[in-house]
């Protein structure tokens, strides 16, 4: 599959799927284990690689959990920059999904359009984080650096351009009879079943649910931003397409609001009063008994976020040391793939690529 490394065992009768068994773990890299041996800020380098199409969203996820566990509050400007990054990342991730999905349908051209327009967003990321795919941008207590000069203007240019391109994408897919023939009524997963199977994100919202953690449980500064939750009622592949397209438009809306706010409110992007190993470069810590003597607060951080693929979660246990004691992630993709047992049987073998393509699989995050 174009979406990465996983295996779907399918039992078929003729062309009809009877039962499926997803097989994961081909990209299990022990990120949770490695995290236990790393400083909080160093885990960010792993976060970018956990979900390689939505690195900044996962950085945000982990950093919020870590801040909660460490009792650190970031300045508001940093929060806005994080939300801006997460929303741009949502657009980039959805564009990547679009590219892979249409390729599964056999459409070559939109794949290239999607990648081309995604590169523009990656250019924006590169201009302020310094990386194309792995950003290492957020830190406990803020972000690494402020936005460069002229960034907001460039960003507005890009999102304006993207808004025009979304129309083009719809013309290539929605306006095609073949697309509807291929996608309508496929992979139906109705809301009660989706809830029972723990499916989240665009897959759940395509079934008519309004569940979006950005609205339901506003984290960061989402309660100050105006946007709507994209939903569809068909619960099929077309519905997921529609929800993601609308989400990109809503993300552009959020991005514009964030840019307006950032233009007007300069300020620091890093919190003050951080513990030694968070605010400054790492250095030998010395005898651990001194560390215990200082009695840093312990804590548990739980952050749940609406990541492009669905609801992601991070659970961080801080036992007062320089490394977290335990880091546990909730991967939306793992559960969304798992529910294939529910939404795949009954369709044809040729329907597997569009249905699984509409799930938006990112194996790195699924296997961790």
């Amino acid at each position, binding site marked *: 599959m174009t979406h990465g490394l996983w295996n779907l065992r399918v039992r078929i009768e003729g062309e009809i799927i009877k039962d499926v068994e997803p097989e994961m773990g081909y990209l299990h890299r022990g990120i949770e284990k490695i995290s236990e041996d790393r*400083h909080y800020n*160093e885990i*960010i*380098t792993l976060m970018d690689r956990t979900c390689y199409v939505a690195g900044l969203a996962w950085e945000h996820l982990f950093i919020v959990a870590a801040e909660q566990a460490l009792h650190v509050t970031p300045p508001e400007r940093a929060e806005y920059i994080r939300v801006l990054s997460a929303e741009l990342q949502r657009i980039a991730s959805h564009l990547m999904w679009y590219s892979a999905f249409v390729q599964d349908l056999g459409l070559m*051209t939109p794949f290239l*359009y999607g990648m*081309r*327009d995604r*590169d*523009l967003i990656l250019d*924006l990321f*590169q*201009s*302020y*984080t*310094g*990386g194309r795919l*792995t950003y*290492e941008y957020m830190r406990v207590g803020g972000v*690494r*650096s402020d936005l*460069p000069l*002229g960034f907001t203007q*460039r*960003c507005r240019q*890009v999102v304006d*351009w993207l808004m025009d*391109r979304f*129309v*083009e994408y*719809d*013309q290539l*897919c*929605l*306006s*095609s*009879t*073949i697309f*509807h023939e291929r996608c309508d009524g496929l992979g139906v997963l109705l809301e009660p079943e989706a809830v029972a199977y723990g499916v989240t994100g665009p897959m759940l919202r395509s079934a008519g649910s*309004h569940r979006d953690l950005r*609205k339901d449980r506003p984290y960061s500064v989402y309660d100050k931003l105006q946007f*709507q*939750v*994209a*939903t*569809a009622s068909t619960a099929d592949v077309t519905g997921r397409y*529609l*929800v993601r397209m*609308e*989400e990109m438009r809503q993300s552009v809306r959020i991005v514009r609001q964030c840019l307006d706010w950032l233009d007007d409110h300069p300020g620091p992007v*890093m919190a*003050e009063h951080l513990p*030694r190993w968070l605010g*400054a*470069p*790492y*250095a030998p*810590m*010395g005898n651990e008994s*001194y560390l215990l003597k200082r009695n840093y607060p312990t804590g548990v951080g739980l952050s749940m976020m609406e990541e492009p693929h669905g609801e992601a979660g991070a659970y961080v246990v801080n036992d007062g040391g320089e490394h977290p004691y335990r880091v546990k992630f909730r991967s939306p993709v793992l559960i969304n793939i798992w529910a294939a047992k529910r939404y795949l049987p009954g369709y044809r073998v040729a329907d597997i690529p569009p249905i699984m393509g509409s799930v938006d699989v990112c194996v790195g995050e699924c296997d961790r």
Partner: protein
Amino acid sequence: MDGTSASGTEEKPFLWVTRPLATAAKQFAKSLWRPSTVVYPFERLEDPKFRAKVAVASGKPIGVGEIWDNYRGVHALNINTCISCNLCAFSCPDVCIEMVTVPGGDPKHPKKCPQIDYGKCSFCGFCSDACPEGCLSMTTRYELSVHKREEMVYSPAKMFDVYKSKLPMNPIRVERPENEDQILLDAPLCIGCNACSRDCPTNCITMLDIPKLTPKPGEKMPKRIWKEPVINDSDCVRCGTCISVCPKDCLFWGTRQ
């Protein structure tokens, strides 16, 4: 609950497949003269000459600008200003930096500079953020393909060559927090061995004489030199070398009251 129903009312099939055909034809006409391809070995994105042509969609430059200045590529090392503080090696999450001896130090103080194995480096920039002297920074060079695994290890001299080639360097300097922790001394444990002062890369530790204590009756006096390190906080780069060399673990991080 405010939600929007993503119905996509604007785009409905019109005459089966004519709309997508028209869209593709439009793009064909647009990219006939200049597609958005960067002809890589001949045109390079980081070259200012091509910035107006690339980052484009079909010949129309958008979102371009100085996007390359922050790029984190190969490191440039200024050997001359490196103080061998070891901070880059400590801050590396991937343990890819090794401090190797370079000529130029005195015999007591061998000069050590970072050697980076790009086969392990994840280009996170923590090392250049940590560098207190700004001598290790990242450039916009990214071509790193080699035939042999050994060629991926960049020695200090090789990184100095990168520095001398005057590539654009990552301008981001992460500011150090104002209320940084200082290095404190657990005075009763100190034996005055001078190790911290000897190895301090910035020479900010001076050993001062302290009054000799007379043991109380019945108490055994530790064998020690009657000196104690005093650290000049304004010069200290917080590299922790003193902590790691201290034989008695009597230095630690803390806030001076």
